[in-house]
Structure formats: structure tokens, C-alpha cells
């Protein structure tokens, strides 16, 4: 190592360490970037953006029972059962939240946006079977889409699934689908 290299090493080390220390000290004086979620978040700051792909929910008022979401899902997370016969009833609409990869293909496939992403992302249970969300509490008539009209708005996004997540699905471990209504009872066309 020559003489000049020796001193150049010393000079380079001292100068670069000095500059590096100035940078870190300057960051110490600045405000940190952290958002202290969940209790010290500044009001007015959204935690997730509007288009965030959170937990799925389905609004059975507008679901047409076309099964497009079930076909599109690459993993097979959605399970829809529509009874055949004279009157179609949606008897089962399950979404396995633990298997879902939140890709959004089912949301794109739905013609009326009945199935949609919410902004919820916090959901934990102690039994994985409780993470299956059963949306049908009693059999529902599917919505009949009017030709060339805007699909109806439906319930606010997130309201349906927030009850289920808050509930932790305690009663859903042993699940039996609700029975079909009698075929003779034709006057009952209430949607849930």
C-alpha cells in the first residue's frame, strides 16, 4: 500500500463516516413516519384506501344467482347452491375467508356487483371452520336483472360482513343449511 493510498484511506473513511452521521442525526430530528394503529391514528387519515381488496361480502338483495363468481374463482372459495325446480332459491352462499387470496376476480365477474370487497381486514377466530362466512340465513329469491338498467345500490359496503366478523361466527361451527320453504307457499316473496 503506497503512502498516498494510506492517507487517502484515512481521509475517505473520516469524511464518509462524518457525512453518514450527519444524515442519521438529521433524521433523528424529524418526525417519524409511523402511524400508531389502531388507537393513536390521526383523525381523517384513512387506514386503507377506497379500492382496498379486503374481506369479501355479498349482498343477497342484488345477487342474481348466476354462479359467475364461483366459476371464476381460481381456488374454489365461493360455494353457491341454487335450488332448481319451479322457483329458484339461493339456499347457500359460503365464502371461505381463510382460503381466499383476495385477488378480486370474482368481483370483476359479478354482473351486478353483489359480491364486493370491503375495507375489513381484521378477522381472527380460534377454529378455522368459523372462518367460513355463511351469508344465507334463510332462502332468498335471486334478483331479476332488468334489461339495460343500472343495478340497484344495495346495502352499504361492509355493513353485512362487519356483523359477522364482530360475531366471530360462534354459532356457525355446526352449520346446517336452512330448509327450503314449501312449494305450495307462493305468496312469500320477501327478501331477507
Amino acid at each position: 500500500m503506497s503512502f498516498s493510498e494510506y492517507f487517502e484511506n484515512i481521509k475517505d473513511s473520516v469524511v464518509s463516516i462524518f457525512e453518514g452521521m450527519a444524515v442519521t442525526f438529521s433524521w433523528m430530528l424529524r418526525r417519524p413516519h409511523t402511524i400508531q394503529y389502531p388507537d393513536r391514528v390521526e383523525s381523517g387519515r384513512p387506514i386503507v384506501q377506497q379500492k382496498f381488496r379486503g374481506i369479501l361480502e355479498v349482498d343477497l338483495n342484488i345477487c342474481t344467482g348466476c354462479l359467475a363468481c364461483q366459476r371464476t374463482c381460481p381456488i374454489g372459495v365461493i360455494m353457491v347452491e341454487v335450488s332448481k325446480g319451479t322457483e329458484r332459491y339461493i339456499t347457500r352462499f359460503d365464502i371461505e375467508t381463510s382460503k381466499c387470496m383476495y385477488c378480486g376476480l370474482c368481483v370483476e365477474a359479478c354482473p351486478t356487483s353483489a359480491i364486493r370487497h370491503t375495507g375489513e381486514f381484521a378477522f381472527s377466530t380460534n377454529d378455522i371452520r368459523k372462518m367460513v362466512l355463511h351469508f344465507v340465513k334463510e332462502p332468498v329469491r335471486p334478483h331479476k336483472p332488468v334489461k339495460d338498467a343500472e343495478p340497484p345500490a344495495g346495502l352499504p359496503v361492509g355493513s353485512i360482513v362487519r356483523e359477522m366478523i364482530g360475531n366471530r361466527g360462534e354459532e356457525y361451527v355446526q352449520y346446517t343449511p336452512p330448509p327450503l320453504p314449501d312449494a305450495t307457499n307462493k305468496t312469500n316473496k320477501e327478501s331477507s
Partner: protein
Amino acid sequence: MLELSDKILESFGLSSQYSLVVIIILFFVYGLFALTFGSLFAGITSWYERRIAGRMQSRIGPNRVGYQGFWQWLADGLKCWFKEDIIPKDTDSVLFRIAPYLVFTGVLCTFVVIPFAPSVVGSDMNVGLVYIIAITALVVAGILMAGWASDSKWTLFGGIRSTAQMISYEIPVALSLIVVVIPAGTLSLQKIIISQGGAPYNWYIFHNPAAFVAFFIYFTSALAEGNRTPFDLPEAESELVAGYNTEYSGMRFLFFLFAEWMNLYVIGGIATAVFLGGWRIPGIAYEVQMESIWLQFAGFIVYLIKALILVNVIIWLRWTLPRLRIDQLMIMCYKYLVPISILLIIVSIIFTILYESVPVVGLVVRLLLFLLGVVIMIYFSYRVYYNIRNFPDKTYLKWMI
């Protein structure tokens, strides 16, 4: 210690044949004080370091446990205390168990000579500096034991690297401290502090250019002795998964960490005692300080503040710099630090002789070096200001302006 014991015996009205008993009791008291001070310092430094590290990395450190997260170190300590003590099967049973205690003892014993205040010092040995360098060799033995007895090739690597590093860097530590011993004329730490002046330009760091450079050489070598970044290859997190203390868990692991954080204070304490004027207050003479107990207490606080500033710098360096490789470490020690410190001793001798014969030169050189120090500080603040001003996003300054 002897005068203190005589004073205590007089106030109780006993004869001086019991002085030995009083001295032993005083030793115990001082040992307890050193242990408490060291442990508290180690714990609080762990919290402080994590907060400072967080702020430098643009995040907040631990701030939930207690006010601003102050009891985090207590929570961590208690958790480690109650952890299961895992000892791998094929380890060397005796060595594995006593290694942490050796390391801890080696660092704790240096607290004996640190002069906390004018009359609070464990034992003002007249070979104080040599004692410090000698007793830290226990740490080397402890780390080597830990590395070997853990029955893993990675820990053996860590232990051997650490041993090589620590015994090599004891040389520049000793040599750079001798640079100050020459003008002081004594190896005892209290007397070195007494022989400095109160005002900053009378400190030994500005005494002659050799001592100025020796401060930085001592600082660097002491960092390497304490296994701190940029010299923390033996406990490198990303390469050896915590090196020689991989197989330790629970309280034994904490002992190693305790020793490391206590060592920070020792580094800072010795550097302030030798180079930065210790407990001297600017403008107050030594005799005046010895009389009044309030001034002694103020000296204690001043010493603490100066040592804490240096501890801050050590923490700051850890979170800025990458680490050196083992052969680069050794090259730096033997090719750069040792020759330069030997040269510095010669320069210091020359300057001391010059000051004896022509005192005016001494004053001029001291003032010039003090100005140099001030200029470096001002330039540093300018660079920090430049960094803050040049970053285009000003939202990070919201609570400052």
C-alpha cells in the same frame, strides 16, 4: 478510603483499630452501588438505544409500556428471567455455565476505578489505567469459553473472531491512553482529572494535537473492545445469528447483553475522565470543589452528562455504519492504529517538553485546538441543517416549525 473510614470512626467515637472493618463495609457498599448503577444503566440504555434507533430510522421505538415506553427494559428483563433455561446436550457443562458470569465480572470490575465524583471512587489506585486494561482480559476469556462450549461451529467462529479482535485492540487502547499520561505524569484517574483544568480548552483533548487524535483512536479501539458496531462481527446478527451467544437463552443471554451495555458507560467514563476533564466544572478550582458537597454533587452530574454524550455517540455510530470484516479489522488495528499511536506518543513527548520550556506556546496551541473542535462542531451542524433543508418533503418537520 482511609480518610473516609477515619472520619466515620471519629463520628461514632470508636478507636481506629476498627478501621479495617469499616473499610470492608465501605467496599461492600461501594460494590453494591457500582452493581446497581451498572445494572440500571444497562437496562435504561437498552430502552434509550431502541428509542434512538427508532428515531434515526424514521420510526418510533418502544413507547407503550409505561410513559414513553420507559418500563420496556424491565418488562424484557422480567420476561427473560422467567424463560426456560435451555442448555444443549453436548455442551461443556462447566464452561457453558460460567462464561456469562466471567464476562459480567470483567466489565463490572472496571467500575472500581471510575471516579464518579471527587470523593466517590472505589479505589483510587495509582495504576488505575493499567488495572482497567488488565481486568478487561477476563471478558476475552469469558467470550472464548462461550464460543467453544456452545458446541456449534458458528459460535466457535464467533468466539475465535472475538478473541482475536479483543486482544488485538487492547494495544491501541493502552497506547492512546499513554499519550495523555505523559503530560499528566500519573496513571491514577483521579489525579489525571485533577491535573486538568475546568474550562474546555484546559482539557487533555485539546492539550496537544497528539492528544486530539489519541481521543479518536481511543474511542475507536474501545468500541472494538466492547464488540460494538462497526466492529461487532463476533455477534453479527446477519451472518452468525448472534455469534457466540447463539445457544444462550434467558438470563444467561441477558448477562452478555448487560455486560455490553455496561461497557458503554465504561468507555464513556474513561474517555471523559482522561480526555474531557472528568468532574471538573468550568471555572471552579479543585480545592473549592473539594470543600463544598454541593459542588461535588454537581461534579457527579457533570461527569454523568459528559459520559452520556459519549454513550450517545456510540449508539449513533451503531445505527449508521456497516460492519468491518475480520481481516479488515485486523489490518486497521495493526497497520493503522498501532503505528499512529506510537507516533503520537513521540509527538506528545515533544510537545510536553516544549510546553515546559515555553509556556506561551502551550496556551496558544490549546486555544487553537479548541477552536478547531468548535469549527468541527459548527460544520457538523451545518451539514445536518443542509440535510434537513434539502429533502423535498417538508411534512417531516411539522412539529418542529
